[in-house]
């Protein structure tokens, strides 16, 4: 289509939003699961150590498991109740892998176990803010799930000057950030100010897509009168939520391939994370629940809903009236990048922002045909890659060829698959190629390590032999001289 507005970045697509399904609905807080399932293994693979045993009473907000370092965020009980069981249970990982899981029954009491007086949080030092964020187990709620405290601390180290808050929410169907901005703008702004203080940022920009006028208004009012916070309305274009593209759209800076945004002095956080930071710092409340959008044409009553972490997908769906008969696929996240859920009985973890139940019609997947080299995928790729070439190489197991065409820069954003008229599952090829390359990398790493160890051993043996020989020779020649004991050690 013709548009006279300059595009914020090259490429991108305009998938139909379907936001009207849930956009006008207040966040519902009435959902109370009868039990929650909390996995002891985090997304990045690190393990938590349980601090409770079967039969223990736990209170809402109580610390129940802890990792060995700051990279492993602590786990708190989302409900008041009893530890019923500790057993292997499904996680939301698409492989359907099971991990050790705490099962806590809920007694329905919604009060916090411990209530901290709301201290004069505005006087806290930046390190105290980070400490509280770390202690509260806050992770990025935009989907990556990286510990927020660590991110803040690293940002300060690399002298970040600009805090960019992502209110883009470019995935179709999802409206939870939109609702959060409309309903809790002042908490978000307070959280943003705390984050800005924690990293020492001199300017803060909140970016919101232009298809959320109410959210824009609410945020505008909430930050009225504060210096240093500015609001930037960006055009709605997928993938605006990608960190690099948001930065490009707002500041005009293009982060180089392989570079982190902090190298340019910019840190990106999501609006929901800002709210969690506020809760963590002001009330010292851990992150035990989040707002998600339950939507799609195959769910009875789509909603924005606050769910305790660890609630089962099946319970949340039941709360929203259940599935319709035409439901064909359940997805965690949005339709562009979300994962198919391996089962309805998986717990929702901190990084899940949406649950979608879609019908065949909305998935709109057809049999793939041969590539006609139409170049559509090249046109929409926001990273400036040539997806059809990368796919051709990946298809021939030529990982190196795929990398030469930029596979490492691929966001797996799905814009190319979305537009391809031949319905070629391009992203599937890239995921496959990426996992193969990763496997190869860790293999070479392992064999390198093994080789280094063998070499070291051989050198050591050779050294010992030489030393022994020298010692023997020395002994024979001058028996009175003190022996060099190095060889015997």
């Amino acid at each position, binding site marked *: 289509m013709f548009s006279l507005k300059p595009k914020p970045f090259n490429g991108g697509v305009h998938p139909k939003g379907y936001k009207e399904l849930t956009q006008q609905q207040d966040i519902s807080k009435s959902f109370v699961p009868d039990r929650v399932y909390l996995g002891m293994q985090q997304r990045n693979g690190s393990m938590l150590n349980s601090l409770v045993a079967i039969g223990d009473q736990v209170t809402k907000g109580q610390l129940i498991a802890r990792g060995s370092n700051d990279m492993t965020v602590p786990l708190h009980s989302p409900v008041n109740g009893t530890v019923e069981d500790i057993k292997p249970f499904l996680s939301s990982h698409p492989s359907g892998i099971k991990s050790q899981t705490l099962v806590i029954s809920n007694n329905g009491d919604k009060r916090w176990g411990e209530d901290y007086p709301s201290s004069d949080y505005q006087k806290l030092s930046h390190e105290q803010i980070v400490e509280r964020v770390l202690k509260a187990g806050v992770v990025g709620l935009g989907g990556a799930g990286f510990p927020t405290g660590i991110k803040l601390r690293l940002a300060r180290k690399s002298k970040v000057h600009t805090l960019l808050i992502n209110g883009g929410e470019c995935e179709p169907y999802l409206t939870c950030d939109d609702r959060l901005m409309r309903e809790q703008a002042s908490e978000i702004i307070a959280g943003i100010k705390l984050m800005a203080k924690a990293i020492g940022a001199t300017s803060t920009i909140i970016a919101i897509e232009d298809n959320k006028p109410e959210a824009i208004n609410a945020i505008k009012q909430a930050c009225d009168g504060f210096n240093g916070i500015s609001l930037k309305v960006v055009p709605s274009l997928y993938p605006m939520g990608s960190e690099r593209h948001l930065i490009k759209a707002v500041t005009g800076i293009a982060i*180089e391939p392989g570079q982190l945004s902090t190298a340019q002095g910019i840190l990106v956080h999501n609006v929901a994370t800002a709210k969690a930071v506020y809760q963590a710092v002001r009330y010292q409340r851990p992150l035990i629940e989040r707002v998600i959008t339950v939507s799609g044409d195959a769910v009875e009553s789509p909603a924005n809903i606050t769910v305790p972490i660890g609630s089962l997908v099946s319970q949340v769906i039941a709360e929203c009236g259940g599935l319709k008969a035409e439901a064909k696929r359940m997805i965690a996240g949005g*339709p562009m990048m*979300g994962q198919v859920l391996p089962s309805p009985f998986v717990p929702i973890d901190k990084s899940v922002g949406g649950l979608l139940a879609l019908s065949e019609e909305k998935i709109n997947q*057809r049999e793939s045909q041969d590539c006609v080299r139409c170049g*559509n995928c*090249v046109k929409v790729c926001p990273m400036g890659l040539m997806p059809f070439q990368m796919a051709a190489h990946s298809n021939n197991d030529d990982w190196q060829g795929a990398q030469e065409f*930029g596979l490492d820069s691929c966001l797996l954003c799905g814009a190319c698959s979305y*537009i391809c*008229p031949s319905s070629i599952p391009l992203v599937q090829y890239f995921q496959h190629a990426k996992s193969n390359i990763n496997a190869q990398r860790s293999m070479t790493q392992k064999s390198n390590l093994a080789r280094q160890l063998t070499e070291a051993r051989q050198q050591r043996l050779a050294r010992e032999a030489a030393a022994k020989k020298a010692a023997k020779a020395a002994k024979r020649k001058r028996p009175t001289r003190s022996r060099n004991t190095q060889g015997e050690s």
Partner: protein
Amino acid sequence: MAAFNPVAAPHTHSGLSTTNIMYLVILALSPAALHGVWLFGLPAVTVLVSCCISAWLSEVVCLQLQGKNWLSSVDGSSLLTALLLAMSLPASTPWWIASIGCAFAIMIGKHVYGGLGHNPFNPAMLGRVMLLICFPFELTNWQATSSPSLGAEGLAFSQQWMGIDGVSAATPLADLNQVQAWNELLIGTHAGSLGETSALLIALGGLFLIWRGIIRPYIPCSLLLGIAIPASIAHWINPQDFASAFSHLLSGGAMLAAFFIATDLVTSPTSPRGQLLFGAGCGLLIWLIRSFGSYPEGVAFAVLIMNAGTPVIDHYLRPKIFGSQSLFKRSKGA
């Protein structure tokens, strides 16, 4: 019930399909084709129909031989090839010559290389060149126009329009210097190939495709400029021997090439810079062949020559990876 086996994202699709694209292009071409029928009458219909039938039959045979589902012959791609070839032929071309050309285009131009998406050369133009070499007389025998006239008793159709006898005429390309009224060229009331005469209708069809996002403006613009710039310079230096840019752009297959032939998805480069280069190359070659070559029309040759370069262009003129430009700047600055 929902299926819980993992499938890769995205879980939605734009709904764009190859078949859609093909039929949209055919739709965009049809006004110019109908205009050809209006101008040249039943002979034009014969050429169009024989091309379509021959292309479809060839497609079915080839798919059968490869053990593929013959039903995919209705995907529009062979129909589009047939239409493009027919529109580049004189309306007086005998039906069997047109059929041979189309069969060649589909079988040799497309399926020998593995079918849709794998052919390096534009099939319609391959067919056109093959016919030009094998049947030089028929392929340069331009029928005079004979559009029906509106008289007192309604529309009157001439004998020629009914295909009963034919009168040939010179095309503007034969002597580009002879000054042609530009509005005649634009609307297309002159002799020429079946579907190439109305520059206006073709350009409108092309703009429609650009508006719908099927083609991008890079190739049309650079191709037209590729003709216009050298033509203007030469005309300015020596107006006796070189036709003006206007005559070049509005006559022959220039418009058709710019919007429909050079923009063929399969055989043109995919990146914007590649498309700019490709279009400019086509335009320049068209002008060179018209001005210095022994053929009056250069579109088919120019497009085929540039097709041969497409893989190289695609290899060297890739889009810039996001952010890599600043890397380039920085390393130069450092």
